[in-house]
């Protein structure tokens, strides 16, 4: 979900018979749940798909700092400020864990970031929506991090070792993010004023559908899913994960005493799942293509940070060289 629509370069799966001996050994290793490590042989398309997926995931963590950065200077108490700062800091950290995993595949972090800045790489659609009131900090933690966790928990078993290990770290650290968000909302609902309760419902109304879109298009419109599943880069389909998220979230919503903006939402006794209304995929596609409410400013902020900061990084390199030379002389 932090990686939506990852291109795998193949719309049709090869059978074991159609594979080269190397490919076949590789696939058998994956089928046997043996992790692929950096130095192992891997098909070029596997490597490229992983680089795309991990970098998308990393970019999402980094861009994801911005909607929260919008409120960190306005957090209402010192405790809330500390919590939000720690969460934002974790996100930068998670971005770095992921870039680090990506670099084991031979990709260069700066080059991949340049792809993000020039619009050639994607990041999660959710971060192109604005955060308009303080309750958004709660709703982002609860819904957005909640959706992220549903997606990331199975990724701890993904076939590529460095990615799986980064996910283990991320999941462990992220467990507090969702609770932190939910607690913000619960506190406002139970102890807040009418205005605060309205903020909470307003935040849920705006973020609900974009959160569901985070899991990516429905299975029949995910041409790359089959290959990613065969490679065990992905362990569940988009629709499976989306359903899991809805099923676990609605009871939490009821505890809050809030609603979601979906008149078709209802419990299905027979299937044991919630049914829900149609997702506006046209909107999702627009946002992914760069036309969401905040795409321009999010990318501009990231681009500026790195471009305007170039002199700082250069100065650090120059100073390190001078220091090295001095040490060499001495």
């Amino acid at each position, binding site marked *: 979900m932090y990686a939506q629509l990852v291109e795998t370069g193949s719309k049709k799966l090869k059978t074991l018979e159609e594979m080269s001996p190397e490919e076949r050994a590789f696939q058998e290793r994956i089928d046997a749940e043996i992790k692929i490590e950096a*130095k192992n042989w891997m098909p070029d398309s596997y490597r490229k798909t992983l680089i795309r997926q991990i970098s998308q995931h990393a970019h999402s963590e980094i861009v994801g700092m911005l909607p929260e950065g919008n409120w960190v200077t306005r957090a209402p108490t010192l405790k809330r400020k500390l919590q939000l700062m720690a969460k934002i800091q974790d996100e930068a950290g998670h971005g770095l864990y992921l870039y*680090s995993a990506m670099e084991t595949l031979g990709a*260069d972090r700066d080059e991949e970031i340049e792809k993000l800045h020039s619009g050639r790489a994607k990041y999660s659609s959710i971060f192109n929506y604005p955060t308009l009131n303080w309750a958004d900090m709660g709703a982002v933690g609860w819904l957005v991090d909640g959706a992220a966790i549903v997606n990331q928990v199975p990724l701890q078993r993904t076939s590529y070792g460095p990615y799986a290990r980064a996910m283990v770290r991320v999941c462990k650290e992220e467990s507090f993010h969702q609770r932190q968000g939910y607690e913000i909302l619960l506190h406002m609902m139970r102890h807040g004023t009418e205005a605060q309760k309205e903020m909470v419902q307003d935040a849920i109304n705006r973020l609900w559908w974009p959160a569901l879109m985070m899991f990516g298009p429905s299975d029949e419109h995910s041409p790359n899913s089959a290959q990613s599943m065969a490679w065990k880069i992905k362990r569940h389909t988009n629709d499976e994960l989306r359903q899991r998220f809805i099923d676990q979230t609605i009871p939490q919503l009821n505890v809050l005493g809030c609603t979601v903006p979906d008149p078709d939402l209802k419990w299905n006794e027979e299937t044991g799942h919630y049914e829900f209304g149609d997702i506006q995929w046209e909107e999702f596609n627009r946002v992914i293509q760069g036309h969401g409410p905040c795409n321009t400013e999010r990318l501009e902020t990231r681009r500026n940070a790195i471009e305007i900061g170039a002199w700082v*990084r250069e100065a*650090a390199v120059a100073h390190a060289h001078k220091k090295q030379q001095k040490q060499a002389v001495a």
Partner: protein
Amino acid sequence: MSQWTLFEVFIRSKHGLNHKHVGSVHAVDAEMAIENARELYTRRNEGVSIWVTPSASITATASDEKEALFDPSEDKVYRHASFYELPDEVGHM
């Protein structure tokens, strides 16, 4: 090309344990790499000691060497204590 160098990071999580590889950081020199590693990998008291080394200075075994390097030790069972059977009356050894 990256302007900053890639360093691999190893952390000793507790006194008495080995340093363990945890990932990498970018930095201009080893000092900065230690600091960046501290910020990134020890935000929750995960470490008591950090090693960094430029990634380029690490030499690794190639995957196709696995059989030659590691399989021969598979049948050297006499290197493991459980290979040697002792009568019960000897007790723990």
